[in-house]
């Protein structure tokens, strides 16, 4: 048993080392992709009635006339020394911009995943338990609907009902938690509900499938034969053994949420990383786009690692 933590430590270290080439590939890819597209941040910065000479001057000031290789190594050198650079547009460092935007995105992701897990897992278990009944069909019907309806449509419907018609919740905006817990929570309810629909659909479906597979196992029959109550059989024996694929989906869901809340953040005017990404892309703000994509990649890799490590807690047979 004494070797297990050491193996685990070595595994984590190996996985962390593996992130370096991954991040490097991401860095090269995003850098080249931005430089090879026919966009010109200088023309955007210069404004509507700028002359070609003014655009050229700005391009030169931004260093966009330097050879691409030189631009890349200048940027990489700065990133390695912890400097993500200065935004072309926002008169702020990219680190400052990201720092300002992390709280709203994490808050929204947290609310969304809590709602999704609390709703989806019981629904999935219930659907599996009542397989073939109307309950199963309703849950699966909802799941299909959740996948099919675009997020912005769900958002508009929720806004119309709960904000405009019933007047229960604000239409848009974000309040930092330091300015008041209720104001913070109140503004996150509708966005989190909007965003959670697709995750509820995904997790409920995955939970149902995993639990169904486990329910046909011998040990479930044994548990029932021993006279255990059905709830205990479902949640203690079946769900726990079905947890690995469910946790995988939840983990991937969290990773996608960090970088994939663009539509919801735009719809509800939440100043998070998703909106920062959109604004940066529309403005061709290369340093900001590069930094947020690197950050998203890093988060993705880390969450994958965390999910892999969680497997060992859920299934003692899995060891690294």
């Amino acid at each position, binding site marked *: 048993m004494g070797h297990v933590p050491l193996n685990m430590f070595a595994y984590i270290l190996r996985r962390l080392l593996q992130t370096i080439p991954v991040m490097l590939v991401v860095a090269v890819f995003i850098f080249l992709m931005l430089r090879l597209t026919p966009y010109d941040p200088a023309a955007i*910065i210069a404004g*509507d*009635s700028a*002359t070609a000479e003014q655009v050229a001057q*700005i391009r030169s*000031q931004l260093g966009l006339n330097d050879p691409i290789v030189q631009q890349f190594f200048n940027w990489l050198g700065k990133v390695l020394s912890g400097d993500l650079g200065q935004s072309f547009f926002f008169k702020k460092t990219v680190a400052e911009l990201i720092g300002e935007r992390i709280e709203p995105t994490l808050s929204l992701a947290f609310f969304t995943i809590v709602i999704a897990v609390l709703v989806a897992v019981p629904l999935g278990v219930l659907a599996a338990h009542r397989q073939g009944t109307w309950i199963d069909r309703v849950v699966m019907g909802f799941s299909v609907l959740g996948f099919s309806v675009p997020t912005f449509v769900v958002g508009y419907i929720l806004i119309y009902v709960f904000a405009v018609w019933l007047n229960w919740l604000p239409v848009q*905006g974000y309040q930092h938690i330091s300015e*008041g817990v209720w104001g913070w929570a109140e503004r996150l309810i509708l966005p989190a509900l909007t965003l959670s629909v697709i995750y509820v659909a995904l997790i409920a479906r995955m939970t149902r499938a995993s639990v169904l597979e486990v329910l046909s196992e011998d040990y479930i029959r044994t548990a029932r034969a021993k006279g255990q109550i059905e709830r205990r059989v479902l949640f203690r024996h079946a769900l726990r053994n079905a947890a690995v694929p469910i946790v995988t989906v939840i983990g991937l869901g969290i990773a996608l949420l960090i970088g994939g809340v663009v539509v919801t953040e735009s719809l509800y005017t939440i100043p998070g990383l998703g909106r920062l990404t959109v*604004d940066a892309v*529309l403005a061709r703000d290369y340093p900001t786009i590069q930094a947020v994509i690197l950050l998203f990649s890093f988060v993705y890799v880390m969450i994958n690692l965390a999910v892999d490590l969680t497997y060992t807690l859920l299934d003692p047979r899995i060891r690294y």
Partner: protein
Amino acid sequence: MGDIRKVIVAVLCAAGLSLQAIPAFAETTLRAVMQSDLKILDPIWTTAYIVRNHGYMIYDTLLAQDEKGEIKPQMLDKYDVSADRKLYTFTLRDGLLWHDEKPVTSEDCVASIKRWAAKDSMGQKMMSFVDSIDVVDAKTFTIKLKEPTGLVLLGLSKPSSNVPFMMPKRVAETDPNKQIEDFTGSGPFKFVKDEWKPGDKTVYVKFDKYKPRPEPASGLAGGKVAKVDRVEWLAISDQQQAVNALQKGEIDFIEQPSHDLLGALKKDPNVTVLEVPQLKAQYVFRPNWLHKPFDNPKIRQALWYAFNQEDFLMATIGDEAYIKECKALFICGTAFASTKGTDGILTSNMKKAQELLKEGGYDGTPVVLMQSTDLKVLTNLAPVAKSLMEKAGFKVDMQSMDWQTLVARRAKKDPPDAGGWNAFLTAWVTADVMNPVSAAYVNSGCDKASFGWPCDEKMEKLRDEFARESDPAKQKAIAEAVQLRNIEMTQLIPLGEYLQPVAMRKALKGYLPAPAPVLWNIEITK
């Protein structure tokens, strides 16, 4: 149980802290959704309208145009013009302060004029007449001209981008091609840099030591009295959500509500939709003179007969209440608008257009027409142009892209098949197209001209003549000659005008009709 108790205590503490955060007095805050998010802060460095609007919040101008377009002193107490019209003497008002509470001096103003004139096209033209700008004392400075021009007063009261905003000398001495880092102004509001979060909000607070003029506010002139303590510009990118927020009272003002949502706003008893004549805009078609087929004046001329304004206006705005057909080069209702030379053009006379194409020897070269797809007021322009041009006999290759890509691509002089272009469509607001010197697309100075690079010596001579003239009647005659020359040479084609109303909560009083949306003089009545 212990853990739950801890959580409850923590939540109550946080709630208590949040209650303490409520200020002890009621501060009036005006929450506005402007046309776009504020990302750049130097109104001299860029011509973007949102940055111009930011400039009006925190800076002041020496002269300003009132509601009727008349030029009035603003930061100035008075100005004198010598009998030979070659020496202008400007005297600043008493009590003007920068936001750091240091006095505004003539040295600051001279440096500001020089920086503005280095960037702005009208400023550059004005400086071609200037012999020297000299400080006389702390409150007086002079502009000495080589020859008389009407551009001094017109330039220093220019209402739209670039507006000659006054900045402290230390700021105004920044290289005009670099953005300023210090945002000290002398206007009625102060910029709160610590609270500025691009993509979220921009915050201004009232400058208590601002000394407004005694006259009532009118247009961009008169007493600029800040009647709210704080102004927040919120970056709500979704138009429907901005309207929802306005109707619910979460915001107070929308600068440019989408035309298709105006019906819902007009029905709301708590909302006012205000039509401001000065916020009219003109659609234009811009051909590129550098490449075939629009390097040929006859072929460009065929466009005047292929197009008609109604099709463009109905396809974009779609509501007759907000559109106006106007064939004048300078916005209808302004001083230099004229109908001269407009008979028979813009009537979709395809027969005439085809004749001109034949005369011009059009060989079927496809026209690369750039379509902007993400700005609602522009999206439908290019498809209409394509349809009408094809009816006239043009071959059109319409290429769709977002506005920012179009902006980047139009700067390229390359041939259309190598990343360049032949034509695009856009819109200009009234304040930018009121005379031959300020209208950027009339500039026909070849390489010095704006994208499209028209090269027309005769047009440039007319623009110089206009700049020299100060008699309004003679200026009008020159402006008419400019219009005729444009119809002959096709620097641009005006495709009609539309009105962009503003929307606000009924409780807002005092919005000033002006060529730019300004938020002084506004009070929240309940």
